[in-house]
């Protein structure tokens, strides 16, 4: 049986009817076609589905969509301001932190969440902070560099 729910995604309000077994990830992708958030494993092991809920990172594949009722969700589509990329997005572009791109939205959301809580992370803090995000292409080297550069840019802005 579907249940009605209200939530906000990237600042936009939504009124929806949702099945109990629909995950937040299913809702974003299959119902709303916000396909920026990726499905890598549906088990919480890869972090590709990471979004922000009330400002904190969460693996959306594990969450019941209904559990996001009345909450504020931010996905990768909600980071840029028009044409202007978020400093984390920009740093990933400039410093080679993107290869195949499939882990990228989830990684960027984790980085945004990390920098919100810790604006001046050490390299070690970044490594642990993205410990829940799997990347098979980059070996993490340039991802970490990008996040540190983004942190620097955000501190001086």
């Amino acid at each position: 049986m579907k249940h009605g729910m209200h939530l906000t995604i990237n600042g936009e309000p939504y009124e929806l009817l949702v099945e109990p077994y629909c995950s937040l990830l299913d809702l974003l992708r299959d119902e709303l076609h916000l396909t920026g958030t990726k499905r890598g494993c549906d088990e919480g092991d890869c972090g590709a589905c990471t979004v922000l809920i009330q400002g904190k990172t969460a693996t959306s594949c594990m969450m019941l969509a209904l559990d996001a009722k009345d909450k504020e969700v931010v996905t990768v589509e909600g980071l840029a301001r028009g044409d202007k990329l978020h400093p984390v997005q920009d740093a990933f572009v400039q410093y080679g932190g993107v290869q195949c791109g499939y882990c990228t939205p989830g990684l960027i959301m984790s980085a945004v969440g990390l920098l919100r809580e810790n604006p001046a992370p050490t390299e070690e803090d970044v490594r642990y902070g993205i410990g829940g995000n799997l990347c098979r292409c980059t070996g993490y080297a340039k991802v970490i560099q990008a996040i540190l550069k983004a942190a620097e840019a955000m501190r001086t802005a």
Partner: protein
Amino acid sequence: MPEERVLGRNYPRVDAADKVSGRSQYAGDVYLPGMLICKVLKSARSHARILRIDTSQAERLPGVRAVITGRDIPDVRFGSGAVRDRRVFALEKVRYVGEPLAAVAAVDEITAQEALDLIQIEYADLPAITDPIDALKPDAPLVHEDLPRYEGYAAGMGGNVCTVLDSGRGEVDRAFAQAEHVFEDTFRSQGINQGYLEPMACVASTDPSGRINVWTSTQGPYQVRGALAAVLQLPMSRFRIIPMELGGGFGAKLRLCLEPYPVLLALKTGKPVKFVATREEVFTLSGFRLPTTIYLKTGVMQDGTIIAREAISIFDMGAYLGAGVQSGVSHTIGPYNIPNYRVRSYAVYTNKIWAGSYRASGVADVTFAVESHTDIIARKLGMDPWEFRMRNALKEGDTAIQGGRVPRNGLQQTLEAVKERMQWPRTSEPGHGVGLALCQWRSGSGPSSASLTINEDGTVILLTGSVDITGTDTVLAQIAAAALGVDMHQVVIAKRDTDVAPFTGPSGGSRITYSQGKAVELAAEDTKRKLIALAAERLEAPAEALACGGGRVYAKEAPERGFSLGQLARMSLTSKAGPIQGTASLSAMPYAPVFNTQAAEVTVDRETGAVKIVRFVQAQDVGVAINPMAVEGQIEGGAVQGIGRALSEEVVIRDGRILNPSLTTYLMPLAPDMPAIENVLVEVPTEEGPFGARAVAEPPGFGPPAAIANAIADAVGVRLKELPLSPEKILCALRGEPLEEITLDLELLRALRGAGGSIQWAGSG
């Protein structure tokens, strides 16, 4: 020179902005009106006759639109290589757990799953064979009883031997007799999954005109097109394959994957059908690397010169021909100049999913064996392992393993660079150690074509059929820009599919920069010739007096006399030759080896067996780094894949069943455990590659297992010959408990008749 403005610059990937914004479209991001969801029913048995498939209940379930099995399609076999041993659906028997039996299309995923649960299968179990060494015995159950009748079957195969390859040179037995020392070791590599983040995905939809559109996650759209046409017995022209953004493949998506299922269901229902694999199906529906056993025997002289090698490699091939057996003959010599050798490689059928491709399939396994063996020999001779490698390493002018001459290369520079960076040799503290590995590969070849058009405003459209997996779109654009003498931002890469772009081989085997890049360079040269010809006509000057650069064609002696590319494009519309388009095609590129040296510094915890990589240094000859940032990204990522293979990854299969088809229990490297990777890019340009570039992407994954095993031996004195190098194995070795000895019946293996199978040195893998 104009190329200097573009070559060697760290342009961000042309697709990066879309990827960081979530705008890039992967196959799973395609949603079409009326789209149905496809799920595939997989065999629950590893070896069994199929007595009955009853789909009637599934067909009647509300929300189910179609159910298909092998009975509904032409009985056509296809294959990953020469032998056509496989079908889209299992027909008279299943040969591995997971083999597809049926597919359904339903209105949503949960209905499709319910439908699968309603399909009834009756099996009659057959004895299963899961150990490739047992599979070689004369009385082993046969995975393919009809093997001799398969298309592509080569004489000499038989029983469960899928392929046998032999290679040799010189007089091996005499050399062993002359050798002052002979060493023998046997090594084992584990099952490895490619681990791409994006599970296989495909959407198929038919047009009213009868064309079949296939949006798919693939490295080889033309290969998919050809295979679909063959397997479904439809003309190739019915298919338009649209390769979507690829979320990793590493070889798993080189050929036909799961496209037949949504295609067949789209044909049957008239609706778009989507198939997206689950992560479990990344293990159970798509082949990955299976274990390998490698025996090496080497004869050396007291001064450290290697004079003889024998090798026997057993590749567990699973139930159908996959990839990797070639590396048992191409790489068991290693990057060394060995005048006498005899190497043989077996691919053996077993009742498991087939051994799929992964970033130079088999070479990492063989390199683990060879580079561990190299260290063992050096240490036993009392020689420095670096000196031993330098003494025996291939040099320019030596005979390459496939015949022909080793051209100029940077192997020695890579050894020197790592020696310097690691301050080799040094005495380490207890529990610390350093280990080396020297690796080789070749730059990929294969059919490649590209075309360029100049727009009336001087911008350039590059049409390349290659799928971008390693950043090649950016590099190809740099090549085109450099060759035409325009700025990078003037080049646009066309969106393409198999209707629109000219044929090219799949993206794999390290071939796109070297071969497709060459085609792009040549297409740019062709374009330049036509631009110059038109300008020469209008300027009434000979072509040799003109140059192309800075976005213009101009007279060398009087640069102010000339035209911009835009002007020429506009002029061409009314010229005799018509609109300007440059094209190029090639099918083979000369041998251009790639060498790298890697070194790992580790600490080993003697109480827990935990290994930490403290430093990782690598030097690779990249020819010319067209985009250094992209090159580094490739070799960093490859090294970390190799570290995963060394320390934590293993697909565990018991009785044909995968015990860990999940990222919870298949453990790939995460950021907190990785060292900083230090890279040295050595540049010794190739003769023929675009602006001297070499292949880059595959070699960095080969060396880490041996480098780390050698470092562990250096640190705590234990020698592990089986991957992964787990804490448990290390603790057993430290306790002096005999590790399971890997034994091969060498007499049997030497005696089995070789097939004289042909060895392909070019091509993908």
